[in-house]
C-alpha cells in the first residue's frame, strides 16, 4: 500500500524506478503549484499507462500520474476509461509541469491547460 492511504488525499504519482528524476520533479511541482499534494507510489516497472491506472486506483482523489522509464507521462482518472492526458518521452519540461498541474486541476474541476502555452516557461 502506498502512502496515499494515509495522510491527506493526494494525486498519486507512480513512477518507473528508472524514470528521469527531472520529469518526476516537474510533474510533482505542477500539482504542488496548484495546491494539490502528491504521493509517490513505487512502481514495479510497468508501462506509464498501467502505472497511471494503478496510481488513480490508489488515489483517494481518484487521479493518478504514471511516468515511464523513458520519461513518458500519462494522467488518468479512476472512473474514466481512456487516459486524460498522454505525453511522449521527449516532451519539454513545461509540458511535464503542465501535466502535473492538469492532474491537480482534475481534482479541483478546473479546465485542463494541456496544449496551451505554459505561463512563464
Amino acid at each position, binding site marked *: 500500500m502506498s502512502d496515499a492511504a494515509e495522510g491527506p488525499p493526494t494525486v498519486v504519482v507512480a513512477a518507473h524506478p528508472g524514470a528521469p528524476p527531472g520529469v518526476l520533479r516537474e510533474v510533482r511541482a505542477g500539482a504542488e503549484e496548484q495546491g494539490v499534494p502528491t504521493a509517490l507510489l513505487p512502481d514495479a516497472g510497468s508501462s506509464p499507462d498501467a502505472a497511471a491506472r494503478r496510481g488513480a486506483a490508489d488515489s483517494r482523489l481518484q487521479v493518478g500520474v504514471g511516468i515511464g522509464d523513458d520519461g513518458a507521462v500519462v494522467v488518468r482518472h479512476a472512473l474514466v476509461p481512456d487516459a*486524460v492526458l498522454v505525453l511522449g518521452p521527449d516532451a519539454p519540461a513545461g509540458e511535464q509541469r503542465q501535466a502535473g498541474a492538469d492532474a491537480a486541476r482534475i481534482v479541483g474541476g478546473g*479546465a*485542463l491547460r494541456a496544449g496551451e502555452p505554459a505561463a512563464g516557461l
Partner: protein
Amino acid sequence: MRLVVGVDVGNSTTEACAAEVDEGRETERLAASLTPTTGVKGTPANAAGVVTAVRRALEAAGRPGAVVDTVLLNEATPVISGLAMETISETIITESTMIGHNPETPGGEGLGVGTTVALDELGGQDGPVVVVVGAGADFDDVAHALNRAVERGVDVVAAVLHGDDAVLVANRLDRRVPVVDEVAAVDRVPLGMLAAVEVAPPGRTIRTLADSYGLASTFSLDAEQTRQVSPVARALAGTRSAVVVRTPEGDVTDRRIPVGTLTVTGATRSIDVGVDEGADAIMAAIGRVAPLQDVAGEPGTHVGGMLAAVRDTMVDVTGQPAAEIRIRDVLAVDTMVPVTVQGGLAGEVSRENAVALAAMVRTSRSRMQAVADEVAAALGCDVRIGGVEGEVAVRGALTTPGSAVPIAVVDMGGGSTDAALLDRDGRTDAVHVAGAGELVTKLIDSELGLDDREAAESVKRHPLAKVESFFHVRHEDGSVQFFAEALPPHVFGRVVTVTPEGLVPVPVRRPVEAVRVVRREAKRRVFVVNALRALAQVAPQGSLRLLGSVVLLGGSALDFEIPAMVADALAPHGVVCGIGNVHGTEGPRNAVAAGLVDAHAAALVAP
C-alpha cells in the same frame, strides 16, 4: 390542381412553401423548405437560392422533379447592413508603475513593502526588499537564495517572479511573504524603487493597494499625490494580487480616445456627434433630427469606413449612383471590451468602453424581375412577383391561431429588424431598423474577448453549462445532468454551450453566470430595443398600447430566450405578444412564403 411554390427571399434565408391550389377549393400545403440566401437580398444572385429552395420543397413533399405551375416570389428589396466597433477609452501604465493581474496561483499572503532588488544583486541591503526574479530561474534555487539572504539579515518582504512558481517558492520559504508570479515582462520592473506587493487569501481580493488611502499610507503620500494615484487603485480593484512600484513619473491614466464624428442629417437639420460620446448621445442626436435622412462618418475612422462600405455595397448591388444612397437607420450600443493595457508588465487586461454601431441602407430599386427570369429559365415554369414583404408577412402571421387585426409582426433577422402593422382599415405599414443577430454576435464576441465568430455564434444560439466532472454538467439554470459515458478532457472544467451536436467549449475563463449576462444583455440591447423601436414607428400615433397583438417571426423567433425577452418588454404596454405559428402548423417560419400561396389561391377563387 396546380402545383405552386411560394418563395420568400430574406436577408439570411430563402424559404419556400409548396402547395396545390385549385379554383374554389381549399389550398393543400405540401411541404416547406429553408436554404441560405444566395447574394444580397433583392439581387439577381438570389436566383440560385430560390431554385434550391423550390427543389428542396418539392423533395420534402415527396415530389422531386414534379412540374411546377407557378413560382411566387416576394417583392424583395435590398437591405445592406454594416457593423463597426470603436474602443473609446484606454488605460496606459507609464514607467512600469503597476502590475495588476490575476495569476492563477500567487504564493503566500499579505502585504510587503520594500525596495526592488534583482535576485542576483541580493545581499547587504539595508531595509526591506522586494526581490525581482527573472526568466529561467528554478524554484528551488530561488527559495534557497531567499532563505540564505534572510539568514544573512536581509529583510526580504516579497518577491515578483517571471515563471508560474509562486506557490512552489512560497512553500519553501522559511519566512512566509507574498509572491506574485507570471509577470511576463519582469525585466522591465524598475529596480531600486520603493514597491509594494500584496496577495489576498484565496477567494478574496486585495484591500490595501486597491484603495487610494491604502496606497497613501503605504507610500506616505500627501493629498495631491493621493489624488494622482487614485487611478492605480481603481485599476487594481478586483484582483487577487498586485505590485505597485513608486517611480518619479509613474502613472496610470484613463484616456478618452477621439474616434471621429458622425453627421446625422434629418429633414431640416444636421448634427455632428462624437462617437466617443457614447451610444446614448448618438441615439439622442438621431432622435433630435428625426426623421433620419442620412448619416455620414468622418473619413479615415472605422465608423466612417463602415458607413462608406455600406453605401458602396448598395451602389454595387443596385447600380444606383452613390449620391442617391442614404443611410436610413443607425443603432448605437455601448459595450465594454477587454483590451491589453499599454505598458503593462503581465499582460494585464482592462475592460474599456466601446461603441458598436449598426447601419442600414435600403433601396426601393428591386431587381426581382431579373431573379424571376432566371428562375423561370431554370425551372421551366411561370414565375410571378407579388406582394410587398411587410404586407404578405403580416397576412401570413394572421393565420396564427389566436391572432386578430390589428396585428403587428416583428421579424428579427441577421442584419435588420423589421416590423409591419395591419390596421383595422386593412392598411399596412412596414419599417426596417438597423441591428439584429449579427450585431448580437459581434457584441458577444467582443465583450467576452473571444475573437472567434463561430464561438460567439454558438454562445448566442445555445444555453450554457459548466462541465463540473467527467460525468456531469451543471446547466445555467442550476440543474445537473449526469452522463453515463465520460465526457472528453477538452470540455472538462470548462464553460460549454449545449448544442444539438454536443457540448462545445467556450474559450473563456469567466464563470457561466458572467457569460450568460453578456449573452442576455447583448440580446436585450439589440433585439428588445429594436423590437420596441420598430414597433413604435408603425404603431398608431407611435403608441405601443394601440398595437393589439404582436407576432414574432423569423429565425430569431425560434431562439430559446429572445421571444420571452421581447414579450416581457411589451407586457407593460398591454400587448399580446407571442411566437408566430403560421397556419397553426408552420411555426414562425414561412409566413411570407405561405402568405404568397394564400394570396395566389384567393386570386384564383375570385379573379
